[in-house]
Every structure is written in C-alpha cells, then in structure tokens.
C-alpha cells in the first residue's frame, strides 16, 4: 500500500519550486512567495514534530510515531520556543519562574545552546511569517525576503534533524510534555 508521508525535505523542495533562486522568464507572483514561506514553515514544523515524537517514544515504530506526531500543536512548539527566546533576551517578557529555574538553573550552565537557539528563534520567525503569509492581506513578501525565509527554514531543518546536543533534546522533550493526547 502506498504511503504519502509529510517529509520536511520534500516541503523545502516545494518551497524552492514556488520561489526559485533562478526563475526563468517572468517572476513568481507574490502569492507564490506567500505559499513558499508557508510551505517552508511547515518543513520546520514537521521536522520538529518528528524529533518530539522520537524524544518521547524512543523505540516506537514509524506508524506509531506518525500518529503521535499529529498531537504536537504549533502552539506547543511556539510556547517552548518563546521561553528560550525570552531567556536569551530576543523576545519580550519572561518565562514562568519554574521554567526559568529549569532552563537556567542557579548553578551550572543554562540548558540553551546554539542549536537550541537557532531552532527556537528560527521557528518563531517562520511561525510568525507563516501566519502573515496565510492570513495578513497587508503583509509584504518581497522576493529576496522570501528566499531568505526559505534559507532560514533549510538551516533550521538541518539543525533539527542533525543536532544531538543535550540542550536540544531537552527542548524537544519539553515540547513533548506540553503536547496532549488527542481524541484522534
């Protein structure tokens, strides 16, 4: 039976097709730019949900993992990413005190490294742009800005798929703990 999995790499290829680096005659429309940014975001989102599911269920088979990946919501990833970004002084506000103490304990090193920051910061940027791309009629998506967001998504997906740092694994674990078992 054929399967049609959602693959971050294929989504990035689709974003490239929508907004190619070297277009032929005529430029892609601004609508194509919007779709490209939205698609690039989904590549990042699904790469993260894959790591989150595997963080929680280390021995599970693919079929099981694909089911639980669906339970990870955009807001779950966003919340943990905001905590990281706030602790790094990039996003306004502060995380709850217990989260601050968890990620930045009084003694020892903070549990945020460059991989975690690239993933959190990149996710937030693309999550915001995806929302604008899909809903904000007044948003501006120039060609170089669109290409920049696709490049960002590629960088973040590579980091999500490749990182083995303890801090990044804690990030994925916290997202898993925010995710709830859904009714389907």
């Amino acid at each position, binding site marked *: 039976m054929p399967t049609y999995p959602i693959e971050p790499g294929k989504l990035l290829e689709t974003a490239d097709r929508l907004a190619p680096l070297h277009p032929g005659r005529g430029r892609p429309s601004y609508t194509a730019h919007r779709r490209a940014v939205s698609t690039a975001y989904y590549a990042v989102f699904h790469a993260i949900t894959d790591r989150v599911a595997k963080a929680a269920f280390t021995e599970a088979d693919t079929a099981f993992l694909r089911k639980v990946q669906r339970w990870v919501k955009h807001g779950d990833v966003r919340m943990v990413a905001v905590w990281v970004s706030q602790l790094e002084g990039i996003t306004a506000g502060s995380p709850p005190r217990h989260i601050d103490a968890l990620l930045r304990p009084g003694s020892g090193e903070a549990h945020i490294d460059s991989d975690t920051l690239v993933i959190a*910061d990149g996710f937030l940027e693309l999550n915001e742009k995806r929302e604008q791309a899909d809903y904000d009629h007044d948003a*501006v998506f120039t*060609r*170089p800005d669109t290409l920049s967001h696709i490049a960002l998504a590629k960088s973040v997906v590579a980091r999500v798929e490749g990182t083995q740092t303890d801090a990044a694994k804690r990030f994925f674990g916290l997202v898993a703990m925010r995710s709830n078992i859904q009714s389907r």
Partner: protein
Amino acid sequence: MDPGVALKEFADFAVGIEVGGLKVHKVSSFLDERQDGEPVTRVLLLVDDPREETWELDTVIELRRLLGRKAIEIGLPSVSVSLVPESEADSVETFVR
C-alpha cells in the same frame, strides 16, 4: 513609554543601521496583533539590494535580533520584520509616499 514615542525611537534607531554590509535606509513600523491576539510590532525595512539573489542569512538574523532587543529595551512588543530591497521600493506603498 507612550507607544507613539517608542515607535519613533525605534525608527530613529533602525534607520542607518548597518549589519554585515546591509544598510537600513527607511523604516515603517506600527503596532498590530497576531491571530491569537498577542501584540506585535510590524516593521518594514527598506534596505540595500542583495548582492546575489538574497542577503546573507547570518546578516538577516543578526539584524532581526538587534531590532528585537531594541524593541524589548523600549517596551515595544516582539518585532516582525519584513525586508524590502531598494529596487522593489516602488512596489511597497509605504515607501512610495
């Protein structure tokens, strides 16, 4: 700080910034809300054209973080930055005026 004053201070800070050879020429910013109601500072920057098809990713990230930190410093909500190259200024109404 009054939001209008903060936006003015933010624009004054942003215009003329140069990061990794990328210079900001004009700024348009306003307060808005995300879909979930969270406040956001929308920022449109008119910048140098990229040397190739787009700008260096590290440069863009550094620029966004610099502006993000400034927004926090003066009490503005998190920023959402869009970049407009000079060659496309005519297609963005706010920079035509």
